[in-house]
């Protein structure tokens, strides 16, 4: 709540201070010949609000990575996951995705999104009104399940337009779905997140779902309450500018 207020305050403050600087500039130049500044066109800003709703029963979603980019995609079914994706899918750490060379504009969610909860994340980009949008977040009570949106083209979204979709659950294929104690970073286990070892199929696929103790995997720390189905999240996009 405090963070939200601060952001709002800053937004109001910035235009005021910019105005003050301009007028100060103007008075300094009063006694000199006005030289028109070189025409540097003001950047065109495209702004979006991305709302992610967690549709699962008991799978918190890790802080969301929201990314605008022009090329590429963050995963391909049937192909090996990038290490950046592995960090997110195994441990919920979005910093490597946000630091990826494809990223032109990136924002992180403030906190994990609890089941049933939503978060709205604002993101802007300069001089690109047809960016690709990717949204990635981990289902934290799993070994390496993630969901999101992969390089969705926003070219046809005009200011004022909204669009929404639902998202499937994917498996990064980088960590075996052992469901074992110590391997799941979410609150059910508090185990290890990222591990560079790749002991699974090593390609991204749709997630097969969890097994849990009720279905005979006695070594599992998961119960059927942690089960999920497709879709697991709703993603809404509004273009505000």
């Amino acid at each position, binding site marked *: 709540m405090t963070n939200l207020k601060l952001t709002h305050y800053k937004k109001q403050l910035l235009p005021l201070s910019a105005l003050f600087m301009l007028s100060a500039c103007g008075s300094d130049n009063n006694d000199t010949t006005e030289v028109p500044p070189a025409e540097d066109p003001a950047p065109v800003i495209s702004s979006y609000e991305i709302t992610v709703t967690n549709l699962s029963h008991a799978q918190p979603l890790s802080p969301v990575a929201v990314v605008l980019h022009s090329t590429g995609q963050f995963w391909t079914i*049937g192909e090996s996951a990038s290490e950046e994706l592995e960090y997110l899918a195994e441990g919920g750490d979005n910093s490597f995705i946000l630091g990826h060379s494809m990223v032109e504009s990136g924002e992180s969610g403030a906190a994990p999104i609890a089941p049933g909860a939503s978060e709205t994340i604002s993101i802007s980009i300069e001089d690109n009104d047809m960016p690709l949008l990717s949204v990635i977040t981990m289902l934290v009570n799993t070994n390496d399940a993630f969901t999101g949106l992969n390089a969705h083209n926003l070219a046809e979204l005009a200011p004022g337009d909204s669009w929404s979709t639902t998202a499937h659950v994917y498996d990064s294929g980088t960590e075996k779905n052992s469901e074992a104690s110590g391997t799941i970073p979410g609150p059910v286990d508090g185990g290890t997140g990222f591990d560079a070892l790749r002991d699974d*199929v090593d390609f991204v*696929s749709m*997630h097969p*779902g969890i097994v849990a103790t009720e279905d*005979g995997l006695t*070594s599992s720390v998961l119960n059927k309450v942690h089960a*999920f189905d497709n879709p697991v999240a709703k993603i809404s996009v509004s273009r505000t500018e």
Partner: protein
Amino acid sequence: MKLRNLILSTALLSGAAANAAELNIEFQNLTQGIYFTPILVAAHPAESSLFETGESASDELQMMAEGGDISGLANIIAGVNGNAAEVQAELTAPGMSRSFALSTDANNTVLSLTSMLLPTNDAFVGLDNWTIPTEAGTYTLYLNAYDAGTEANDEIRGSGAPGQAGMPVPPPLEALVGTGGSGVTAEETNTTVHIHRGNVGDSMNDGGISDINSSVQRWLNPIAKLTVTVQ
């Protein structure tokens, strides 16, 4: 009068040409551990179909769903003058894609697809009478797994022959499927074509209730992605 006839027939011809289509079809296995048997992809008249949910499977569908044998369904397509894409004999492994080219005749306005899932008793991926768009473009479809309802899902090694219990285990699956399971169930209470409830499996390679690996050989729908490009 002759001129009028000519115009009329030209109009009919162009109308027919608008319905015939050149399709490029890419099928992708989205699962982590399920294989697909050779895929039947066919355009056919809307009055016919390869399967109907909520109805009993035909003998031909049963052959496909229990053993991967699409010859019966291919005969049905041929019998209604449908257009089937060339069948590729290999299994489609997890994560893999397969491309098909299909030229359709004017009357064949819908597209259908079937392929058995391995390891299962009688699960198949299906597309039932999707109307082929007349507008050129690329269309993405997600496909679900169905249960033919013709065999109990005992999940143990057995036969791919219609009406015989157990799962067929062709070579690539041989090393991936367990042995000695006691059988998950001997009953199939819904004997119509329905959405598959999924594999149960177990975590024992030798013994347990199932010969299926519960951590890998499961799925959630959708299990396949179909990208159809209408030229």
